[in-house]
């Protein structure tokens, strides 16, 4: 029954936004994770979403959303000269992650708004399904 399909779609949206929120949390938690080499420094991570199509039939709507993968930001890392730092390399540099806190905050709000709209969809689908079940009572 298609009323229950709307539940699955909204649930996939909620799960995708939840994963996005997890990545934001991971980025913000690691904003000060210092490293002594470029390769080992944490880079800001972002999800890439993809619509899940119901077969190849163009007359059917997407049956949800999923996370295609996680990309690491290619923005330059912040290199600082701090020879006294215990993590400094031979030249006296430390590397800070390329996490942009302002971007992460905006991402967090966007993810939570999208999550909310999926919750609303689920509530509305629930009301619709219940009223259909109650027909004839």
């Amino acid at each position, binding site marked *: 029954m*298609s009323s229950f399909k*709307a539940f699955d779609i*909204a649930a996939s949206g909620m799960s995708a936004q939840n994963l996005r929120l997890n990545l934001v949390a991971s980025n913000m938690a690691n904003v000060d994770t210092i490293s002594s080499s470029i390769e080992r420094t944490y880079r800001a991570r972002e999800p890439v979403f993809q619509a899940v199509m119901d077969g190849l039939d163009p*007359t*059917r709507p*997407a049956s949800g959303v999923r996370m295609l993968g996680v990309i690491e930001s290619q923005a330059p890392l912040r290199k600082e000269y701090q020879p006294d730092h215990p993590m400094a390399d031979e030249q006296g540099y430390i590397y800070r992650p390329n996490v942009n806190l302002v971007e992460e905050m905006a991402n967090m709000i966007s993810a939570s708004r999208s999550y909310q709209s999926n919750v609303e969809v689920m509530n509305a689908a629930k009301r619709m399904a219940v009223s259909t079940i109650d027909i004839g009572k």
Partner: protein
Amino acid sequence: MNANSLFGIHEQALRLHDRRSEVLAANLANADTPGYKARDFDFQAVLREAMPGRSLPAVALRVTNPRHIAVAPLPPPLGDLQYRVPEQPSVDGNTVDAQREQAAFAENEIGHQATVRFINGALSTLRRAIRGE
């Protein structure tokens, strides 16, 4: 009197409201998917096609040679999905406008409730007739 004439168009309308909620839920779930195009269908037009006696002809393949393999006529497509015309598409190619989709979803829910009330009304009429009130 059969159930078809009792509920009339409302049975089809209920099915279409369910389907539309699915389409709009998919739009809202993909509000942050790069390249996703928001979709919807023209409820009135599809409902008019779904009216009894107004069914579209079945889709058949054209045969230009008697040796072509015969394919049984396909059922007419019900409710072709169309792409929404974006007002402000984003840079990543996504055309979902969350506010518009939410408004459409709310409208669809109200329509669904109205249809359910019509069906309930028809049923209570029938019940009253059976009881002889």
